[in-house]
């Protein structure tokens, strides 16, 4: 064979001490190119692979016996995604199952998504889905099925650390790194997981897909949140919580009313565009106060934050107070240096060395020691008032 990527790959045994043919691998398959390659590749390497696709959302338009609220959204491409996953498994010659987790997804991901907006924060549902569905419900299912390991198509690396304890590292190709979305992974979950694409670039994955004969090799990456087809999240939120569109005031940092807005769900801390009002100078959202429906705006200088608080921590390696770490405050953020301090109530205080713009409540603060993800938590909305409690509870 000439220049096969397969030859250049150096994939360690997924389960130490077990031969591939003795290892049952459960592959979480979305129907996209990444997870398809994972399943096909491991099969090629001799593993016993089973593909599982989660049906999380009802993709049929509302018609018959509307069973609960989730029925009422329009169609989207996801049936095709299930088809793609099924076809890949058939091509490769491995079993494939579709598991219906719609009601769990509604309770554990969508409700949280809505609550978070209502608390004046900006949610990351993909983290919730990883945390509460894929690495929880699906992982238990994988164990029940006799699986030895759960694999996904995330661009992250599982690296053996000192004392044989696995560490979660950023993917080698930094523009594709997805570790941020996996910060809730517990040591036990990491133990049972593997991420075979962590060393690859997206181009390499696509080439592999082609080499493995997968019809999805040119399928575009999905951009949308799966239950927000077209990206209009307001529709989703107001459907479940019409009060989210309650109008309120724009105020400045001193509390002076500057005008009216059409509901706090239209805003994220750090936002400048689409405020729906001209202020004379460039203005940014600096805070959201759900109890009074106020959106605080200010010039760029007021956006910078050095100290903020994080709750619902997950640690793969718990740092000492005052440890200097790299902090990422949103998915696309490259990370900035800062220090952490544990508070008595379990929260963390984060002190960045330099002010950072757009530290948005509801997003995650994820801590790295170089490439090594050591933990993270959710950024608190300091202005959430009574709502703050609600979000923390629902996040527990």
């Amino acid at each position, binding site marked *: 064979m000439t220049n096969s990527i397969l030859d250049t790959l150096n994939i360690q045994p997924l389960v130490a001490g077990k031969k591939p043919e003795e290892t049952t691998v459960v592959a979480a398959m979305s129907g996209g190119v990444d997870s398809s390659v994972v399943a096909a590749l491991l099969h090629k390497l001799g593993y016993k692979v089973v593909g599982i696709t989660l*049906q999380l959302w009802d993709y049929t338009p509302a018609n018959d016996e509307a069973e609960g609220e989730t029925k009422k959204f329009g169609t989207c491409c996801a049936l095709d995604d299930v088809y793609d996953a099924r076809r890949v498994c058939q091509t490769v010659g491995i*079993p494939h199952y579709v598991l219906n987790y719609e009601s769990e997804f509604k309770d554990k991901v969508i409700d949280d998504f809505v609550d978070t907006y209502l608390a004046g924060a900006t949610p990351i549902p993909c983290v919730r889905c990883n945390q509460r569905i894929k690495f929880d419900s699906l992982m238990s*299912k994988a164990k029940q*099925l*006799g699986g030895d390991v759960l694999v996904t198509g995330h661009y992250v690396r599982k690296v053996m650390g000192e004392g044989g304890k696995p560490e979660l590292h950023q993917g080698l190709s930094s523009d594709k790194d997805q570790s941020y979305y996996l910060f809730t992974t517990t040591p036990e979950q990491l133990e049972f997981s593997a991420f075979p694409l962590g060393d690859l670039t997206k181009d390499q994955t696509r080439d592999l897909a082609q080499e493995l004969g997968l019809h999805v090799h040119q399928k575009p990456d999905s951009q949308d949140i799966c239950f927000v087809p077209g990206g209009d999240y307001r529709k989703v939120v107001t459907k479940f919580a019409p009060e989210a569109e309650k109008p309120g005031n724009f105020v400045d940092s001193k509390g002076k009313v500057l005008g009216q807005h059409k509901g706090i769900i239209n805003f994220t801390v750090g936002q400048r565009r689409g405020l729906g009002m001209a202020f004379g100078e460039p203005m940014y959202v600096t805070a959201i106060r759900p109890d009074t429906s106020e959106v605080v705006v200010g010039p760029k200088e007021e956006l910078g934050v050095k100290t903020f608080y994080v709750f619902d921590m997950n640690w793969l390696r718990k740092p000492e107070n005052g440890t200097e770490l790299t902090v990422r405050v949103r998915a696309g953020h490259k990370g900035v240096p800062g220090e952490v301090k544990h508070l008595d109530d379990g929260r963390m205080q984060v002190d960045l060395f330099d002010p950072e713009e757009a530290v948005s409540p509801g997003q995650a603060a994820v801590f790295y020691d170089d490439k090594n993800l050591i933990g993270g938590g959710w950024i608190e909305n300091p202005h959430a008032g009574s709502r703050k409690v609600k979000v923390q509870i629902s996040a527990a």
Partner: protein
Amino acid sequence: MTVYFDNNATTPLKDGVKKAMAEALEVYGNPSSVHACGREARLLQDMARRNVAAMFGVRSEQVIFTSSGTEANNLVLRGYFACPENLEKGSKLVISSVEHNCVHKTAVDLNRLNGVSMHMVTVDRNGIIDLDDLKLTLEKGNVGLVSIMHGNNETGVIQPLDKIVALCKEYGVRVHTDAVQTAGKVALSFKDMGVDFMTVSFHKLGGPKGIGAVIMKADIDMECHTSGGSQERNRRAGTENIIGIAGAGACTEEWQVSVDKMQNQIGPLRNKLEKGLKQLSNELYIIGESTNRVPNTTNVIVPGLEGETAVMSLDMAGFCVSTGSACSSGRVEPSRVILAHGIPADEALCALRISLGWQTTEAEVDAFLAAFGEMLGRMQKAS
């Protein structure tokens, strides 16, 4: 190696069926046409119809081919009540709480759309209908039709049709039975059963999918639920599915052999399977175990082991079984039919249907028991 234990969902084609269908591929005439090509198709269809009629001891004109068992059930229920004379005699439809969806939902539809009221007779823990309830309902009057299935697709439980028919006769009420799961497994004489309508579907007995039939008394008034040509004696419009009909004819040809085999060979294998299963776990139980059932079906509940998980687990080991009716797979909700037995929802979720076929061997049953035992061991470890 794949072992297929899901024969209540559908069965592999018999060799004779494949041959008959392959031959029918060459016959392209429309059976309604007068010319030579039409006659050829007509003859093929007539021959098939005679085979089907012979299996149930009826005349050819009592057989109406449909596109499926589902359509046959719809045809009877909708066609019967669409007739004003029938509706006048009684506007209540009586069904059981364990009917297949194509009867259950049709009854709900009729109730909603056509003002046909519905009464659902409950079943006991063994899946047998409450005859007192049926009697009481008949006594109250206004019952137009009773539709109670013969063998249940999820549990295999066979209803005491003789008693049901006797009761209905007493009150002059017509009876339909969905015999999709008993046809080919137990001998069915339409006359002896005493029903007015019966539904069969040929893919459950070695025939092709997409062909079913209503067997009925020839003189009952019934509306055609599709408008069009006068095929099937005006009961079912539309050019006939000649290839499917040829397959239906072929699968019923040696029906006696099939029934005997089911009774004498597959029944004992099923009993061996159940005995073996019970040895594997103390909590495990079989729905309707001591009841009259079709010889190939076992519905087993292992509390704590979700049916869906078991289906996947066994599939990975090469065994095809299911959680219930194939049509409702893919959604983890307890089966309406299993719940109707008074089984609590958390246990109903654990129902697993194993349905043997004419091709089943003892070695397959032994291998299945081994795989089942292995699965139980693993579950214990995982929990």
